């Protein structure tokens, strides 16, 4: 069957690099979950302040948006580790074992290149915002480099996890596309 290859996490074997990356990704996952919880709490606080106390709510909406973006980007490596990014493996399924192996190298290679591109330009974007001290155009006026930081961090860790996944397959610790022998 195609798709979300069950809830199994990527395998690390006893490889120290793979384990270190897995630990980093898990840490990122905790941060991501914590940001979602914080967003829930702040939204409830906002409703309380506005509805019960009838006071201004100037910063909450923005804070919650940036937390949600942070949760998404920083959660990327963890979800990759859990194999939670939905995929359709119709072509790999129809291939022989060897062909599937090379197909995996190709798609993983492309994924790594694309994430590296986003990481590169994401870092530049963050750096520009930092250097020029861009702020959001609201009363709160958040320094934008803070939320933008989630782009290089999230994609940087994502890149690491993708490389680790590729290495795991190259070292035969894990199977291409998580497909054992269908």
């Amino acid at each position: 069957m195609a798709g979300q290859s069950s809830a199994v996490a990527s395998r690390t074997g006893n490889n120290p690099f793979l384990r270190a990356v897995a630990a980093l990704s898990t840490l990122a996952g905790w941060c991501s979950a914590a940001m979602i919880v914080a967003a829930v709490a702040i939204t409830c606080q906002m409703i309380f302040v506005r509805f019960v106390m009838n006071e201004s709510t100037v910063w909450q909406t923005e804070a919650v948006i940036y937390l949600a973006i942070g949760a998404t980007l920083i959660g990327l490596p963890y979800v990759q580790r859990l194999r939670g990014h939905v995929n359709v493996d119709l072509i790999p399924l129809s291939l022989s074992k060897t062909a599937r192996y090379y197909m995996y190298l190709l798609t993983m290679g492309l994924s790594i290149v694309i994430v590296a591109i986003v990481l590169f330009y994401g870092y530049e974007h963050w750096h520009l915002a930092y250097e020029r001290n861009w702020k959001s155009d609201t009363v709160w006026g958040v320094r934008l480099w803070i939320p933008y930081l989630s782009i290089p961090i999230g994609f940087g860790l994502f890149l690491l996890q993708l490389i680790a996944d590729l290495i795991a397959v190259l070292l035969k610790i894990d199977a291409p596309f998580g497909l054992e022998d269908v």
Partner: protein
Amino acid sequence: TELRLSHQWSNKDIRHQVAQIVADEVAAADVDLEIKIFGSKSLFKPREQYRPLSRGQLDMTVLPLSYAGGQQPAFNLTLMPGLVKNHDHAARLSNSPYMDALEEKMADDDVMVLVHGYLAGGFVGKDGCITKPEDVDGLQTRAAGKAFEQMLAGANASITSMASSEIYNAMQTGILNAANTSSSSFVSYRIYEQAACYTPATEDVALWFMYQPLLMNKTTFEGLTEDQQAALRAAAEKAEAFYLEEAKKQDAASVEVFEKAGVEIAEMTPEDFEAWRALAQETSYKLFVEEVPDGQDLLDKALAVE
């Protein structure tokens, strides 16, 4: 040569028409220049247009300049309460040392103005009329623009931020008691169905004016041939005249729509206007001057325009 223009408005909006005039005129001039318009946010989100424009990834845009206030705090002056009295005054501001100073700042970002233009707006109240500062005391208010939020907070309103598309539902369910935005947004979001009272911009006084020019990347402009530049300038001049005339009509048209919907129309007296302006001086003007290094100079230049 093909230029790409991005904006957030529908194809019936006055700001789209301004862009369309420029595109049509340039095409008619037959100088090998085509402007492709990407309307209705089909290319970029509204607040994400200025940065690509300044880096040459986008050639032209029509947008409220205050959207870029986070990058150039001086631009916040283009949405300051009570700075513009009416549309003719707005047109004089567009050709003043004040605007020259702003254009210098835009040039730092490699951006230039092709068509100047201001649009006005007003207030709506869910239960009552909002004409003077005391009227917003204790009301949950959604304001368009940072400077307005600061001023309304100074009048003891509770500020809540939400997308303009949420105003309708929020007023309906009572989350929101008052809102302030442009005349055309009030109409396009059908706020008249939820408001008890509308305080529009009039020919004499209006508090809410927003500078919404058609901008172009400077390097791209300078890379065009002289004929092409001349054609663009000529088209822009024609569009600017149209923009001013239509901007005046928008306010009256919005009043008509609200009246037809049975909404009470309130009028802001010159005394009310002065009260707001005095409040703004204590709040938004003051904060602006604190935030922007040459803010006082810019503000003086703007206030100097008769």
